């Protein structure tokens, strides 16, 4: 398991670096921007607080892309260079192989969440302000993006297509919720609809991907 996790980490190292950049940069830019505008005076704590919060929100939004990359690479990348076949002839079962990939993805999510909450907590403490606005729409879309690209990665052979399908899945959520609201099927607000639908789609895609991988003939 440790070996598999190491292998999956090495395989996705580039994606993980991109994910870190996409997550951290908006926050740093937002924070540094406020400091720079007010320099040499002490930055306005309200401005700082607001822009760091927006920064984390943007970082989260960009993490949707990172998670699509991670999900889309999970199976197809190894299939395309043939190493999936090699791994399949080694003793670990498919379940172990799958678990390692899921573990890496969960670990990434935990790190993203940890960074977002730690930043928000830090800026709350530093400015003495507190805020809790918005719905966890970005979280839901992260879930959708990862789930759909994960499932696609099991099905299609090209990681690029898998990532693309994941992104399509992400756009599909607000479009379909909007359409359903317009048609009168949904009586809830857009953010709630997107969140619920996004999480539902994402988790079911992850589960479907796992089940399909276990049953599929070719690894």
């Amino acid at each position, binding site marked *: 398991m440790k070996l598999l996790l190491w292998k999956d980490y090495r395989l996705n190292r580039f994606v993980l670096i991109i994910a870190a950049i996409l997550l951290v940069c908006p926050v740093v830019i937002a924070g540094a921007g406020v400091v720079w505008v007010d320099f040499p005076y002490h930055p306005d704590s309200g401005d700082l607080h607001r822009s760091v919060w927006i920064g984390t929100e943007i970082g989260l939004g960009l993490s949707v892309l990172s998670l699509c990359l991670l999900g889309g690479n999970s199976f197809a990348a190894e299939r395309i260079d043939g190493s999936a076949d090699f791994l399949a002839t080694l*003793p670990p079962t498919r379940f172990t192989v799958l678990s390692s990939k899921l573990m890496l993805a969960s670990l990434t999510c935990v790190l993203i969440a940890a960074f977002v909450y730690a930043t928000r907590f830090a800026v709350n403490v530093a400015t003495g302000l507190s805020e809790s606005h918005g719905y966890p729409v970005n979280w839901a879309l992260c879930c959708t993006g990862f789930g759909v690209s994960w499932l696609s990665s099991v099905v299609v052979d090209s990681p690029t297509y898998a990532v693309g399908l994941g992104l399509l899945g992400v756009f599909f959520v607000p479009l379909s919720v909007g359409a359903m609201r317009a048609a009168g099927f949904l009586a809830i607000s857009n953010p709630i609809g997107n969140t619920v639908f996004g999480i539902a789609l994402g988790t079911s895609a992850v589960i479907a991907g796992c089940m399909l991988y276990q049953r599929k003939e070719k690894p």
Partner: protein
Amino acid sequence: MTAAISIFNVTKRFGSHVALDDVSIDVKSGSVLGLLGPNGAGKSTLLKLVVNLLRPNAGQITILGRSVFEGASPIKSEIGYVAEEPRLYPWMTVKEVISFTSGFFANWDTGFQELLRDTYSLPMTKKVRQLSKGMRAKLGLLLALSHRPSVLILDEPMSGLDPVARDDFVGDILDAIALQCPAVILSSHLLADVQRIATEIAILCNGRLLAKQPIDKLLQTTRRIRVILEDGRLPTTRPGGLIWECLDRREWLVTIGEFTNQKLDELKNCNHASSVEILEVGLEDLYKDFIRGAQFE
């Protein structure tokens, strides 16, 4: 004694295409089965079934008496598999691939692996993608041998190697066989190499098993005979065990299995032949006769 590898009534379909049609083969420990057949005959499919990369539509495959399709983990540690152009992790270094693979085997023999590494003189710090084809084949063989498997599956391991690398690699395989005596299945188009390595031959064509015999017996009991027919005569009596025949004017070539002198007399006496002659042919010709005969049907 049960066979080390036992393939029993295996059928494999891809959609409507029948890749393997009711194939049964046994391989004992210490014997080397050369699996021959044209492209698309189902050789690779059969070997992928044995290493559980594919699942059959019907039939059973056991290794040391245990089915390969259930509880795969303990059986996989008894199998060494070298694919055609082994697809290892291209971004790993040789050292990394070895330590990665070794971690999954409880029966990994580090001493043996180091011995192989030194004999093959593998560059440990190079990335797999930087290796030559020959080196990659050697690395694949090292990974397949270091847990001292009782079953070795080699799927076209020499294809794509230049003659010198191929000779070298054949030597490595022979060494491995001498050291461990596993049951081996080797598929290849290179009949001269197969003849050196194998003790038995199985010929697949269009998913069916045409023949399976010890290689020496095949050579000793299969004969190609040239019959010169008298003017205006056509062959009338065909002997039993006919594999292939070809008629060109008065010359009638017949390849028959289970050859006996009686069959030769039969050919001469029942066919208005002016002369019969046994031709000297090698494994390659006999193999081609088998394939032509099967395709003609």
